[in-house]
């Protein structure tokens, strides 16, 4: 009896791990120990600020960030004044005004990040036919998102001699199929961090992972913090209801 059950549980676990591991395909992922991993995980604000800078200075010329408004940046530890300053660096279209005209004005905290292209067709036209996806949700929209993003950004390599790389395509060991239309975005020292942190390819990529993990799920830290409290409550409830059950059943004769 017991043996059957163990076997069944074993099958089930194998099944579950297989199904969910599927999809990673032929690529090799680099696994990193992110601070947001695990039940007690937290986001690293300094890294997120650096990642934000890297996004603005490197990625924002091709990729939008539709789900993030300037006001959300307070999560990264920016003050209201700093947020206003970031926003006012952008010109956004507003309107129509009383004359029915659209007009440009400096950004305010409530505005969302302006996209680099007005629409998908323009984005494709600017990138040789390929579409640079919105990055807001990217770490949730790929299996093992954070590791995948880090690997993607750090795996541009010389192609093996037998691999044909067509014009406008680049060899990337982490991208499914290994041929991606995005040119290598980070070479190292692409940004100068105010806090003097290293700006090699790996550091910038890792900072971007922190930033984009937050954009994908701004509530991630709150979720885990709430979770720990809820688990403590529930485990106490398990213990108490078990005790109460044993107490109530004590007078029932065993069958």
């Amino acid at each position: 009896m017991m043996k059957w059950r163990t076997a069944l549980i074993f099958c089930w676990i194998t099944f579950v791990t297989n199904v969910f591991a599927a999809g990673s395909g032929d690529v090799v992922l680099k696994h990193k120990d992110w601070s947001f991993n695990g039940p007690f995980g937290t986001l690293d604000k300094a890294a997120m600020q650096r990642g934000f800078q890297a996004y603005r200075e490197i990625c924002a010329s091709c990729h939008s960030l539709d789900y993030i408004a300037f006001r959300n940046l307070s999560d990264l530890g920016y003050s209201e004044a700093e947020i206003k300053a970031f926003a006012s660096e952008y010109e956004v279209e507003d309107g129509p005004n009383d004359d029915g005209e659209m007009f440009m004005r400096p950004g305010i905290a409530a505005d969302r990040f302006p996209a680099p292209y007005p629409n998908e067709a323009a984005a494709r036209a600017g990138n040789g036919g390929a579409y640079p996806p919105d990055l807001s949700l990217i770490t949730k929209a790929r299996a093992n998102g954070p590791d995948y993003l880090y690997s993607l950004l750090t795996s541009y390599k010389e192609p093996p001699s037998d691999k044909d790389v067509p014009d406008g395509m680049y060899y990337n060991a982490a991208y499914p199929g290994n041929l991606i239309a995005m040119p290598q975005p980070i070479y190292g020292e692409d940004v100068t961090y105010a806090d003097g942190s290293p700006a090699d390819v790996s550091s910038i990529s890792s900072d971007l992972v922190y930033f984009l993990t937050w954009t994908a799920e701004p509530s991630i830290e709150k979720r885990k913090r709430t979770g720990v409290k809820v688990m403590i409550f529930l485990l106490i409830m398990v213990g108490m209801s078990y005790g109460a059950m044993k107490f109530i059943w004590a007078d029932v004769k065993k069958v």
Partner: protein
Amino acid sequence: MSTNKFSNPVVRWIDHRLPIFSFMDHELNEYPTPKNLNYFWNFGSLAGISLVIMIVTGIVLAMSYTPHVDHAFQSVERIMRDVNHGWLIRYIHMNGASFFFIVVFIHIFRGLYYGSYKAPRELLWILGVLILLLMMATAFMGYVLPWGQMSFWGATVITNLFSAIPLVGDSIVTMLWGGFSVDNPTLNRFFALHYLMPFLIVGVVILHLVALHRFGSNNPIGIDPSGPQDTVPFHPYYTIKDFFGLSVFLSLFAAAIFFFPNFMGHPDNYIPANPMQTPAHIVPEWYFLPFYAILRAVPDKLGGVLAMFGAIAVLFILPWLDRSPIRSGNFRPIFRIFFWVFAADCVALGYLGGMPAEGIYVVLSRVATAWYFLHFLVILPLLSVIETPKPLPQSLSKSVLGGTAMVGAASAVKEKI
């Protein structure tokens, strides 16, 4: 109708005119329940609570959700980001569906092992299978609502299946779609139906419970209680046991919600639906995988659809396929082996449903599908005839005395209360 068992005069006054308190007292308090139920009997109440959780979180989500192809994905992201505790509500609803299915699958396998589908509980069982069908339809339509890549392509693949039906197939598909492809009208009608169906489930659950309370719960030994010494009042004995089970269930559920909320989902559903771009693998939610495997195991489209629905249809007639008068698998040595083989077969089907339909997986899917139907259509009827059961105990309270095997088994309508 005596109302004097209630001390509160208001309760007495009401109960005399509307015996709602007597009803509750009778069905939830004194309701005699076998005293030997094991933890597998916790899953019925857990299923009921899951249903309530889904309805409550679903209604709250509907307050901020927009069923339009241009806004659905965004509106879900707004719930995740801008609605107070929206992320929590959505993660509960999302993972709740998976946990609901886990609970109901265990509940069904409990019934399969302990023969809970046998007389006099055939209708109870049939209502249960009906609930399963309604749940599947509800979950399928719900998964379409966030309008991600898997929502769209899952809906496209599954609705297309109906075109296999001869003559009317294409018209059915057009009706499901509300047009000529999965599009805004599809999303709108799926939302309307997804809102409606859980309430149909509530209706069937009520019938399920009425049928349950007619003869009471089956139990691990599978013979009827022979008198009050074999039962305990539902309250406090099973209310506290169900509460303990609920605590354990909620702990596991909360661990998923707070620590791995997307583990059971597919990353592609965080990409907005794009009719121009097919995902590399289209896979349904995990709880549909065994059925998906059966669908793909049959080389013919109509055949596959029939096999998939047949896999559920056999459950409806199960009480007439397994004619053995012994309910509990504990007393059926051969049945027991086949039960576990069948369980492993279902797990295997689930695994195969998640694999690409090529090479060895196709062969294995066919074997597993064949075994699924063989189990119900050949093995169970055969076992009812050839198997010699172990001796049954004389009553729930007494241990095995040896000798006669059939005491109290079978369909003798229990006279109680």
